[in-house]
């Protein structure tokens, strides 16, 4: 079932005593907009979590397999039996008659049909020309924190060493120091878009969309680690347009979600220190707001 609506969405998530997204340029400190002090989480970081979530709940089996994998999630590196799409006879017949451009097209369709992430976010396939590209219907932006964040650095000790040589050097003391970085509290907002036109090209359907929303709602629940601290999705506001082209400007819709620190709070340390105001009055005709979280 293909999509017949345009969607724009706002994803709100927070972090407590954790590092939502480390910056490889800055020794894994939380990403920071140096000029304004706002925290950043890249689009690819969020997409990774969607992939991991879908991989987890669907067991990485076609048609919900994940193409770009992280080994930590996948410990079942077995060979996949892929579902054949369309008539196989057509496939065989094609080989003889049509040019290579068409076979690339077939392979692309087949990849879309088997892999959730290819169908959702797109992928680049090799083989020369532009036709080897899949443009996914889902487009995500960098997430940015509502207030400037403060990155804290903690020194930690380890009561063991990795190698014997190191133990000798320390004369049996066997202690090493490490560092970890956390954000005491930060609330982040990312924007996203779903194009039904591109969805038709990749075969991204209503079921996939539902799975995407579920992933955005729950992905942090399955991404626990020492570095992350406590992360959670605090809001997922989906603006559904009646038409495929859309019924309103995306930015005008996004402006309806306002997150502010409460007046009395000077140092925010929890979600309760923020007030989320959703302006639902007078939504443009043909746009409905679905509050998923």
């Amino acid at each position, binding site marked *: 079932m293909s999509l017949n609506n345009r969607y724009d969405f706002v994803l709100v998530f927070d972090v407590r005593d954790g590092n939502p997204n480390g910056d490889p340029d800055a020794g894994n400190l939380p*990403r920071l907009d140096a000029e304004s002090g706002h925290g950043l989480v890249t689009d690819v970081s969020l997409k990774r979590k969607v992939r991991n979530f879908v991989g987890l709940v669907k067991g990485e089996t076609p048609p919900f397999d994940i193409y770009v994998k992280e080994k930590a999630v996948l410990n079942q590196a077995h060979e996949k039996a892929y579902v054949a799409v369309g008539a196989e006879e057509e496939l065989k017949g094609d080989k003889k008659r049509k040019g290579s451009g068409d076979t690339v097209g077939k392979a692309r369709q087949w990849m879309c049909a088997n892999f959730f992430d290819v169908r959702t976010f797109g992928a680049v396939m090799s083989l020369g020309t532009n036709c080897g590209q899949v443009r996914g219907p889902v487009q995500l932006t960098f997430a940015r924190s509502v207030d400037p964040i403060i990155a804290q650095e903690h020194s930690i000790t380890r009561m063991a060493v990795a190698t014997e040589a190191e133990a000798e050097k320390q004369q049996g003391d066997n202690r090493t120091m490490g560092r970890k970085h956390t954000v005491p509290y930060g609330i982040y907002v990312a924007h996203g878009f779903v194009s039904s036109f591109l969805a038709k090209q990749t075969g991204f359907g209503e079921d996939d969309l539902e799975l995407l929303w579920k992933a955005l709602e729950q992905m942090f629940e399955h991404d626990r680690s020492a570095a992350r601290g406590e992360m959670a999705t605090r809001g997922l506001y989906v603006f559904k347009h009646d038409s495929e082209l859309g019924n309103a400007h995306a930015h005008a819709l996004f402006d309806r979600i306002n997150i502010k620190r409460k007046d009395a709070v000077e140092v925010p340390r929890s979600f309760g220190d923020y007030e989320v105001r959703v302006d639902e009055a007078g939504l443009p005709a043909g746009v409905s707001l679905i509050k998923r979280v």
Partner: protein
Amino acid sequence: MTSFCLEVSGDFACFTRPEMKVERVSYDVITPSAARSVFEAILWKPAIRWEVRRIEVLKPIKWISVRRNEVSAKASVRNAQTAMNAGQGNLALYIEDDRQQRAGLFLRDVAYRLHAELLPVGDDARANPAKYREMFLRRAEKGQCVNQPYLGCREFAARFRLVTDPDSEVPALAESRDLGWMLYDMDFAAVSDPKPRFFRADLQNGVIDLTQAQVTA
């Protein structure tokens, strides 16, 4: 009227210089080709063609550096075809094995006014140009688009607004400088091997006039 004006803005943008695309470095301003695709994201049919005439820069040129983990491999068509025919196979791409960290030097906090002309190329558009003009106006006014326009890369989504009276808008950035050679657009005459074309970008009081620009291959 065949000329239209859109104001686009965004938190970040990356109009990658072709000579520095491993570690992406953006041009100082939006390229005509990126501007064209903003218009195309709102309306494009095989019967029409967009030509960007004028780019007005509205905000000072500022930078941000972001390093990200990226994959270095592309999906292999051959492997996909083998698995497709066999009905099984191992196609996965492991990010730990094919990883590269790439820094990008992006623009931040950008805003442009883009002027472009809608030119008919197909017979239908020539016979009935008003149809396409109206279609574009209607869509841009309402915020409709085929996919959300973006500033160079898809993660840098653009806000857009139709400008009906450019004279009453805020003036462009009061700055003139020679921006050097910039990508004008890709020439898709040979579809399998598109060729880049460049132009000398001259920013005069915040405006790049493309009608005067000399474009070379």
